């Protein structure tokens, strides 16, 4: 079962904190991969707020193709960051790991954000299509203030490999996943966290209902609902579909993936709407056992779990810094000086939402709506 480590803070912090938390949960992952997703970037990215950041791994040939495509489509490169790689035994080094900051094409200067988001997603998909057949180019995210790093190997070793212990790269929200390779070949696109248009999530637990969910999402007419090299990618897309496409508030994500029973719905003040969406979104019911941790474009960070099989998850911290981990030992590592009595172990009806800027924690109970 994958191990998950998320931290949200009002101050910038190093993603090494997440990796060290993952290290405490090492019994639960087999070191077959690490995925890091940083949001609200600091360090060298701080001056580029609002500019889209493209996170990629590529060969030299892939890099040429990337630059050529971006230039041809009017993106102007403003800044390139590359981790300072340190060769580590057991980690196979690829030719280029990079994050490039761009200016939007001129024609998009005044376009609303939603249109810009579509452009960024379609660009990411086009680049993926170019590089996927020969593995020359992997693009994980292309969005303002978001950076993604992924590689196969042990998380701690990869932290050293990417030089994160020495780097000035920082963020206010970091999702990290230590991979347990159970079902799928080790493939970079199968590694969480997954990203689409400002939404990032990671999950543990096998997704029982993967095939019907994938088929349902694939039919929504959104070109971004693709990939699915991992059964966990659907959780990101369900969140995107619920919150962005349908416009439902974040806590309805829980109602979509783990719908209530009829006798529970009838006590909700929004019962009439809930009944309808339960039927219409029936194929998105996950039937667990999954713990999903993610962020939304506004910087909210949340944890939600299945309604019945309950993978353990824990949330703890203090105003200004909260950790959302698949194991409480990870929370201990990330925020040791917190009031442990206030730790939250979300139960079957709970969604824990931490407000942007790690200001406060809210536990939303599905039964009460």
């Amino acid at each position, binding site marked *: *079962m994958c191990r998950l480590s998320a931290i949200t803070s009002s101050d910038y912090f190093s993603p090494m904190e997440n990796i060290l938390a993952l290290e405490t949960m090492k019994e639960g992952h087999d070191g077959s991969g690490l995925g890091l997703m940083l949001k609200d970037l600091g360090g060298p990215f701080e001056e580029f707020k609002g500019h889209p950041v493209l996170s990629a791994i590529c060969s030299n040939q892939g890099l040429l193709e990337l630059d050529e495509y971006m230039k041809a489509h009017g993106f102007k490169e403003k800044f390139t960051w590359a981790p300072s790689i340190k060769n580590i035994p057991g980690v196979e080094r690829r030719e280029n790991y990079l994050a490039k900051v761009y200016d939007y094409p001129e024609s998009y200067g005044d376009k609303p954000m939603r249109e810009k988001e579509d452009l960024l997603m379609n660009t990411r998909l086009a680049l993926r299509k170019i590089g996927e057949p020969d593995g020359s180019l992997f693009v994980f995210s292309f969005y303002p203030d978001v950076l993604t790093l992924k590689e196969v190997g042990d998380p701690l070793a990869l932290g050293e490999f990417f030089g994160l212990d020495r780097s000035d790269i920082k963020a206010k929200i970091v999702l990290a996943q230590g991979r347990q390779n*159970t*079902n799928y070949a080790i493939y970079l696109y199968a590694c969480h966290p997954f990203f689409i248009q400002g939404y990032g999530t990671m999950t543990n*637990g*096998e*997704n*029982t*209902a*993967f*095939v*019907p969910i994938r*088929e*349902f999402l*694939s*039919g*929504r*007419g959104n070109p971004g609902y693709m990939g699915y090299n991992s059964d966990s990618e659907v959780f990101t897309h369900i969140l995107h579909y619920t919150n962005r*496409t*349908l*416009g*439902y*508030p974040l*806590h*309805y994500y829980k109602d979509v993936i*783990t*719908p209530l*029973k*009829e006798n529970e719905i009838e006590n909700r*003040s*929004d019962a*009439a*709407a*809930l009944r*309808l*969406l339960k*039927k*219409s*979104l*029936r*194929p998105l*019911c996950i*039937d*667990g*056992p999954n713990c999903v941790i993610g962020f939304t474009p506004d910087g909210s960070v949340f944890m939600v779990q299945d*309604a*019945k*099989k309950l993978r353990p998850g824990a949330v703890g911290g203090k105003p200004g810094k909260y950790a959302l981990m698949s194991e409480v030992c990870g929370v201990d590592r990330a925020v040791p000086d917190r009031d442990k009595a206030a730790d939250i172990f979300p139960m079957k009806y709970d969604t824990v939402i931490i407000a942007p800027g790690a200001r406060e924690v809210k536990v939303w109970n599905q039964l009460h*709506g």
Partner: protein
Amino acid sequence: MESAARLDQNHQLSLKELPYIIQWREDRCTRCGRCTAVCPMKSIEPVVQVQRLVHSEGENPAPKVSRTVSHVVKQVTEIERYCIGCGTCTLVCPTDAIFPEYNFQHKFYHFKNKGGIPYMRGGRRNDPSVSTLDKLKFTRISMLTDPALDAGRHEFRIRTLLGRNLPAEQLPIKVEGDRLTLGAGAFIPPVREIYPIRIGSMSIGALSPHMWEGLAMGITYLNEVEGLPVVMCSGEGGLPPSILKSRYLKYFIIQIASGYFGWDEIIRALPDMIEDPCAIEIKYGQGAKPGDGGLLQAYKVLGLIAKIRGVPQFVDLASPPTHQTKYSIEEAVAKMIQSMSMAWGFRVPVYPKISGTKTARAVLNNLARNPYAAALCIDGEDGGTGAAYNVSMDKMGHPIATNIRDCYLDLVKQGKQNELPLIAAGGVGKTGSLAANAAALIMLGASAVDIGKYIMQTAAGCFGDEHNRCNVCNLGRCPRGITTQDPKLYRRLDPDKVAERVVEVFKSADVELKKIFAPLGRSTELPIGMSDALGVGEKDIADRLQISYVC
């Protein structure tokens, strides 16, 4: 010169031509006469024979011949009185002296067209080979990656939706603050939450009053006591007024078919209805006899049936092969769905049923564009019937597995697999594996399945099988009293016992479904389209159904 044929019975059939040969034990028979009295086909009769006996007494052989007159049970060789193998004779024999034996060498079909009338019968496709459904197995057993559920202790909710589910984008939902509310004005199609195994359409003329009553009591008990929302379809022929005006109507799907039998009564009862029916099924086709309309032969059109259907007694009730108002699928189907919807104020799901066919996807795609179509029911070639030509039953139709899979994948392409539920019928539980067949069809994409023959066999002991046993539902001579209107026959069937069996059948199927779903980790929603859980040991089937080939 007179033909020699008349002298040596050359134009008569021998027993070896017949599908079943009666084995009669003279030494055991007490000549009570029960077997000959009960035989629905009059295939056996008491005969007086002169027997020549040779016997010898004493130390040395000294054969003596004597002639005695003896009573024997003899099988007749007239094709109209062929032994159907039902075994009622065995059932009533107090000394186990008689039983029918299947004759693998029979040439029955060569001769069963006397008078130029092709063989007609009831029953099912006479194909005893293993069906595709029975070849499918559930190969996804989650253990550690996704802890399996305990089928005995975990809470399962095995339900399905019958009716059109609007896409979420079309729901009249508004966001107010951080809550969702329902806006006014938009049409929200009616959707029923039902048990995914339904009792399919069998009419109250095809079934005897006792059988029908037993089924109706069974499903009512399941709904009201066991909490399993099992529904049944009326078939063509209406419903008794006592049901139409009762609160139990909600457990019934009313069928309208091309003969419109029973609809005078239904329309008249409309103002007095205190509940809406579960749904309306418009029958365009039937898996057992594609291209043919319903047929209730005159033998079965007795008083009660004639009254409910609004017709004279003892006349053949043949429904036309197609609805006479049907001009094209676009125009007529849409109109019919709309008319039916309107009759109940758009509160009742209305859907068509067709026979399995290569053209199912064309129908499906039409329905996918019709906002009032509530589902599509496809009845595969293994579906049963009360009366049809043998050629229709045995040689026509389309297997349900590929039909349902193709349709489901078509809906997936359009993103409408949740919008328009598919109901699969025909051969579900053919060899007794009801839950496994139902689960396999659900994983191929069906939202629900229908059973017919299975429930007759299981709840009332129907003798029929794929070796053409019995299968005289059309003649009204059902020896079990299931498909007859003759009180002398149907009084053999105790409706209470049928109801008890219906309850037992559904409760046990429910347990088996849980056993199948638990290792998949599925308990909240049905695993509709969860094809990754299926495997099959034949590569061609795996490729065709787009599931795993396992060996």
